[in-house]
């Protein structure tokens, strides 16, 4: 058998002793198995027969609490709420007022004030543990100024969608997507350029070692660095005035990548050497068919 810690045993014995009205030492001895158990003064009746008539009140069941037993009152922290153990439901609802407390006959969810003295035969509930009522999800229901998604947001979104579609259609009618000659492994165009979103990287390649510019910078700083941003920047504020450093860094990144991309796209000619687009034309085939400087 599991050994019950002394303090728990003592506490439970105390409560039991108070409920039964017997000395604590006796109960403690019983619990330890040193003494035969005394039968409780009110024998528990597990399932009372459902009677239409109010049964003769069992000897032990006292008045005010019996009526309230139908609905179990939730235990109040720190207070031992007396609850009758013996015949429940049947005694309650139809019973004529057997007490001068009128409220007891009607449906009372919980007694307004628990009686001070514990009546005979009523076993008080014991507080076993306190489980804090907390939801799985932390819902912070602070009232905010909200509007209906339909129509307010949906209309804005739908308009944006239509505008972009219209712009794209107009663009696609005017500008022909490039299609150069058939791929030819023997004719390397000069310069050979990547798609524009990689031209910043290609530009970096002309300054640094390929391992640095082509792989380490994009994967380490680009990809992993960007993923790490929320875990590095622990400043909780979203106010621009509170995060000047972060904003400065990001703006530098934006400006830098835009500069590199523009340089790679427009200012690099044959041999990936510097040219001026207004002097030598654009060496970027994506734009070849429809932009004519000169």
């Amino acid at each position, binding site marked *: 058998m599991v050994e019950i810690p002394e303090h728990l045993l003592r506490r439970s014995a105390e409560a039991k002793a108070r409920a039964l009205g017997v000395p604590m030492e006796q109960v403690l001895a019983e619990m330890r198995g040193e003494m035969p158990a005394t039968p409780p003064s009110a024998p528990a009746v597990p399932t009372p027969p459902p009677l239409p008539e109010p049964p003769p009140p069992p000897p032990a069941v006292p008045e005010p609490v019996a009526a309230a037993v139908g609905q179990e009152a939730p235990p109040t922290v720190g207070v031992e709420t007396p609850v009758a153990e013996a015949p429940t439901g049947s005694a309650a609802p139809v019973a004529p007022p057997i007490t001068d407390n009128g409220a007891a006959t009607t449906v009372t969810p919980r007694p307004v004030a628990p009686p001070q003295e514990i009546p005979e035969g009523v076993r008080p509930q014991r507080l076993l543990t306190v489980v804090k009522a907390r939801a799985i999800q932390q819902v912070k229901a602070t009232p905010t100024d909200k509007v209906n998604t*339909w129509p307010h947001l949906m209309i804005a979104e739908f308009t944006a969608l239509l505008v972009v579609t219209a712009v794209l259609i107009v663009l696609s009618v005017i500008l022909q997507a490039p299609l*150069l000659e058939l791929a030819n492994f023997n004719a390397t165009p000069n310069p050979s350029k990547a798609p524009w979103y990689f031209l910043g990287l290609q530009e970096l390649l002309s300054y640094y070692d390929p391992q640095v510019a082509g792989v380490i910078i994009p994967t380490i700083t680009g990809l992993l660095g960007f*993923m790490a941003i929320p875990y590095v920047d622990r400043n909780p504020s979203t106010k621009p005035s509170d995060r000047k450093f972060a904003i400065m860094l990001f703006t530098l990144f934006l400006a830098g990548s835009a500069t590199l991309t523009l340089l790679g796209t427009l200012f690099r000619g044959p041999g990936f050497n510097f040219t001026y687009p207004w002097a030598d034309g654009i060496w970027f085939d994506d734009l070849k068919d429809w932009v004519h400087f000169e």
Partner: protein
Amino acid sequence: MIGDGLKLRDRVAEAADSFRRSPFWESMFRPGSPFKRGYSDSPRNRSYVIMNNVLYHLHPVKVKRHAVRLSYTLCLGGLSFFLFILLTITGIFLMFYYRPTEPAAYIDVEALSTSVAFGSLVRNLHRWGAHLMVLTVFLHMSRVFYHGAYKPPREFNWVVGVVLLLLTLLLSFTGYLLPWDQLALWAVTVGTNMAGFTPLFGNQVKFALLGGIEVTGNTLLRFYVLHVLFLPFVIVIFMAVHFWRVRKDGGISGPL
């Protein structure tokens, strides 16, 4: 009824009305839909439009007031999603006319531009739409950064977003090879050469990307499958997580 003086317009209106009364039409829309007969504008119905609708997967019934202001988000995230749908639709159209083989690819793209109805327009839409999507995804990320919208509890959604940006770039890059012209061939050569500089296993990365030691028909097939099947499949999963987390992490971030 025929020939008793009813005008055609009235008859059409009557037919339309009886169709909207039919059990078929009634069953098509859930309660509160504006397409249902007798829709009236009420706060309850405004909620139902979202709540009783597939839209509920994307939007809550109510949004913060500043979220509606166009200047807050510039609709960039939504437009990225819309461009993805547009690219899927135009891409499916293009797939009907395209064979990813070395001898056929270029001819097919050429024929598409010259002898297929709207072929040229759809190809242009696909191409410019793709460039625009790279741009909107990138700008969306910048917008989110400037609003500090990656801060708790949205940290992980930012990570998902960076993955989405990477997938967008990969989608665009794999599509770049498919016309099989000089531009495609050499852009991909440059791009995969860069990947070849990966420390330790650079050659293996390059080999896996190309399906060989240089750009060949194998590469074309590989990029095609990545472009039309694998990457869209992956990006849709990440998008689903992204949108779900936007909702669960408290919707759009607060006003500055």
